[in-house]
């Protein structure tokens, strides 16, 4: 279970060159050892993780009760194993955590499939109505920090290296207020070094202008429904620039981010145009989505309409919730996968290159399946280590009382769409083991290898239910590689590093270092590759945010490879 980690084998290093990572490659399929299907098992009952997401709902079902909560998979104590952090709600309308049932929770991984609740020791129980979380090492000290978003409080916790955290929000200046001093309703956050200066900046999505006083009520008495977001004004997102001294500067206006008013839910970062600068995609609820194209660290242009990702192929918005952006076609171009509500389908955008996307939901064969689903957490992840990234969605209707309409179901099962290696997917949820048969009010989902066995596990938060620890039990013997980047010139986590992998059989894959994506959640920063039957990787090329390009040769499979920027 505990696979050895090793340091990189660096064969060649080329600094300052941007190699053509996006060149179209001849796709060769890695040999698969057997055809055992994707399978997951929920091991929450034996894990010691007893977290229940309490949204503090009331009889009027205010819109905010549907939007928590997030999950983070992070190794806060640097012991080589992922720990789990959950955000939690608060009492409504006070929006305060009145009692332990509303605390955010941190669970330490005991390396044996069990976890220990260390929330109070860590000082992470939180304040206010929390929604999302983003984990990364913002101060480049080698220890992962946490940013928690929420309705009335956003909190930045600095890791003290001793199992505890300190709230540094005020000093850092990242409390989530706008220039007028008004706290915005924050949902997701992403750590991104948008100007490639070696320090992680912080992007925060904001939803809509809600308060207990302005809360609307919809539906019939006793069976209230979540009001549509159209009843509330939207809000701008926030970008904080990291000053490198523990403080941040709100650059939302100067970078053009604040010019766009949306209803931000999920956020994903990827270098969609392969220019070496990370771009930002914001999933907006029932409004056009935003694609912020990075102007080489000087600001952003919102190009969602031009790129073809603002709306569906039908030119209308969907209730975009979660989002992930990665290369699911192994062509070097990150696509975009979005979860939405039932009756809308989940948009899947293929990156055509030349700054254009095309919606592939039906062509990729996920249209009819997702029409019936309402999704939150989203991931583009290789779940069976066959070298092709699959899709995952954490599902549930938005309204607790949705079932008054016989066509709708509040509690839903999660979904997995297996990549069929021909640019289509197949809904394999019904055959993906007992972990995928659980009907619940799923929300945030984070992806990472909890037991270091080389298979990506998934942790999903559940409103009014135990969180699910979905261990990947796929037994096909396929090989894998996990890459942990350690930046030196670049940010310490290496976030933003673009990785191209060529395996023994000649198949080529692309991925990136990021903890962002999904819904209100934060995933394993280590980059996962499935290798099929290949036991050797011919070449790994890393393009760091600093511009450094580093190439490794003949890397053995089935290991967690630590790569330090520029090291020989």
């Amino acid at each position, binding site marked *: 279970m505990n696979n050895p980690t090793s340091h990189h084998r660096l064969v060649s290093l080329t600094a300052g060159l941007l190699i053509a990572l996006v060149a179209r490659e001849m796709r060769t399929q890695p040999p698969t050892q057997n055809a055992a299907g994707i399978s997951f098992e929920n091991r929450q009952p034996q894990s010691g993780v007893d977290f229940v997401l309490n949204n503090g709902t009331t*009889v*009027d079902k205010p819109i905010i009760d549907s939007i928590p909560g997030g999950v983070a998979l992070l190794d806060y104590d640097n012991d080589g194993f992922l720990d789990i952090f959950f955000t939690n709600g608060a009492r409504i309308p006070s929006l305060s955590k009145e009692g332990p049932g509303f605390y955010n929770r941190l669970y330490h991984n005991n390396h044996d499939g069990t976890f220990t609740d260390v929330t109070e020791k860590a000082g992470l129980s939180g304040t206010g109505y929390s929604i999302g979380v983003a984990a990364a090492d913002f101060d480049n000290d080698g220890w992962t920090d946490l940013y928690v978003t929420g309705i009335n409080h956003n909190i930045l916790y600095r890791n003290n290296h001793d199992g505890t955290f300190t709230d540094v929000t005020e000093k850092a200046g990242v409390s989530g207020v706008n220039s007028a001093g008004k706290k915005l309703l924050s949902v997701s956050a992403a750590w991104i070094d948008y100007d490639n200066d070696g320090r992680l900046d912080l992007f925060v999505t904001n939803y809509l202008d809600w308060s207990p006083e302005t809360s*609307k*009520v*919809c*539906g*019939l*008495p006793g069976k*209230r*429904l979540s*009001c*549509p*977001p*159209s*009843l509330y004004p939207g809000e701008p997102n926030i970008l904080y620039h990291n000053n490198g001294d523990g403080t941040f500067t709100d650059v939302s206006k100067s970078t053009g981010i604040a010019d766009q008013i949306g209803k931000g839910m999920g956020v994903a970062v990827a270098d969609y145009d392969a220019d070496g600068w990370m771009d930002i995609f914001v999933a907006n609820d*029932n*409004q*056009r989505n935003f694609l912020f194209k990075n102007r080489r660290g000087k600001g952003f242009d919102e190009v969602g*309409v*031009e790129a*073809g990702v*603002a*709306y569906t*192929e*039908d*030119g*209308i*918005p969907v*209730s975009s919730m979660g989002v992930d952006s990665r290369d699911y076609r192994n062509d070097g171009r990150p696509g975009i996968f979005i979860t939405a509500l039932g*009756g809308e389908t989940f948009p899947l955008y293929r990156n055509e290159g030349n700054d*254009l996307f*095309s919606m592939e939901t*039906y*062509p990729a*064969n996920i*249209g*009819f*399946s997702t*029409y*019936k689903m309402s999704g939150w957490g989203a991931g583009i992840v290789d779940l069976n280590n066959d070298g092709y990234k699959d899709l995952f969605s954490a599902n549930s209707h938005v309204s607790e009382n949705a079932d008054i*309409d*016989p*066509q709708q179901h509040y509690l839903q099962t999660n979904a997995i769409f297996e990549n069929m290696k021909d640019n289509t997917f197949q809904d394999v949820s019904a055959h993906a083991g007992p972990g995928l048969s659980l009907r619940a009010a799923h929300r945030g989902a984070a992806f990472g290898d909890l037991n270091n066995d080389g298979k990506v596990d998934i942790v999903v938060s559940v409103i009014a239910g135990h969180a699910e620890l979905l261990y990947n039990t796929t037994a096909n013997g396929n090989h894998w590689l996990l890459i942990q980047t350690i930046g030196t010139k670049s940010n310490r986590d290496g976030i933003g590093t673009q990785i191209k992998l060529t395996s023994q059989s000649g198949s080529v894959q692309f991925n990136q270092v990021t903890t962002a994506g999904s819904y209100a959640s934060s995933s394993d920063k280590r980059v996962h590759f499935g290798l099929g039957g290949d036991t050797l990787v011919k070449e790994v090329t890393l393009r760091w945010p600093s511009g450094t390009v580093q190439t490794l040769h003949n890397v053995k499979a089935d290991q967690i490879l630590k790569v330090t920027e520029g090291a020989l």
Partner: protein
Amino acid sequence: MRALYGSVLCLGMAVRCIAATSEVTTDSNADACAGAEIQLKSLSTNLNRNQFSVAEDRLTLLKAEHPDCSSILLAEARIKASQGAAEARDLFARYLEKVPNDPAGLAYFARFLIDQGQYQQADELSDAAASQDVKNPAALAVRGQILIMKGQPKQGEELLIKSCELDPDNAESQFQLGVLYDRTKRPGEAVKHFQKVVDLDPGYASAWDYLALNLEPLGEVDRADAAYRRGLEVNHEGQQFDAFLDYNYGRFLAKRNRLAESKLHLDRAVELVPDYRDTWYDRAKLNLRIGNYAQARSDAERAASLTEETGGILNLQVYNLLEQIYRRLGEKELADKYANLTRQTPPPTRKGSESTPSQ
């Protein structure tokens, strides 16, 4: 004699007999129909199942034997109405002179008027029909349809449900209830009713079309495909012709990546309904997808030349599509123009409204 017949019939068919007796016993010229009760019943069944050619044959025989039977007059009016013939109006009027206030007569006349676009008169007649007999399935069905058209879907649904309960074999009642469920996005319920319609009347192309459309969201794609194909097989020129069947099937095939077949049906769709924005829009989308940008531009510009009122496609959708087409054609100025229009046009909002808060 008629009362006895009705009573006997009702012993085993408690629900269906109401429809039969209501039409037969309201005939003030009952003696003129004496001896034709069984044939009239069969005729009524044929008409309710939209078996108009069979009904026409039966009618010819009956008419010769019972020239003064008013029920035959009503049947003749219904057959003419199914053909869209203007003389149906006169036949209905003559029937109602003979059998004033007959709820079935009023109801079928009202349905004919709906088909003719004479909604005010249809409203009045359907109201009168339903008032005459709250258990007449035809009256309830047409009144329900009118109420839905008047923006009273709940009341309309209640009447249509009642109508279908009273006479489950009335294809038009089943169809109208299915349409209501289709419009309110309840595909599971809609499918049940459209399936019933096509079981009763396998030649009803629109019912196959609706059945397929509602099977799609349920993920029953193979069944939907079969339903579309059955619909196309029976979609013949005439009053019952469904001009949108090719359009819907073309869109469906595009979703299933059967692009060449999709193109054939969308080509036919734009020929059949050239003044309808949706057909041009969807063919433009298909042409964009297959890289036929010039044709996509032509189709999308044609869609743009038609107004939002000619179909369900919004200006926003057309602008967004034109932006994408011109972007791929490398015509930056036009692409930017439509990008701006896309940004400036507010999107439709998710349905839902504020209610009174709990106390």
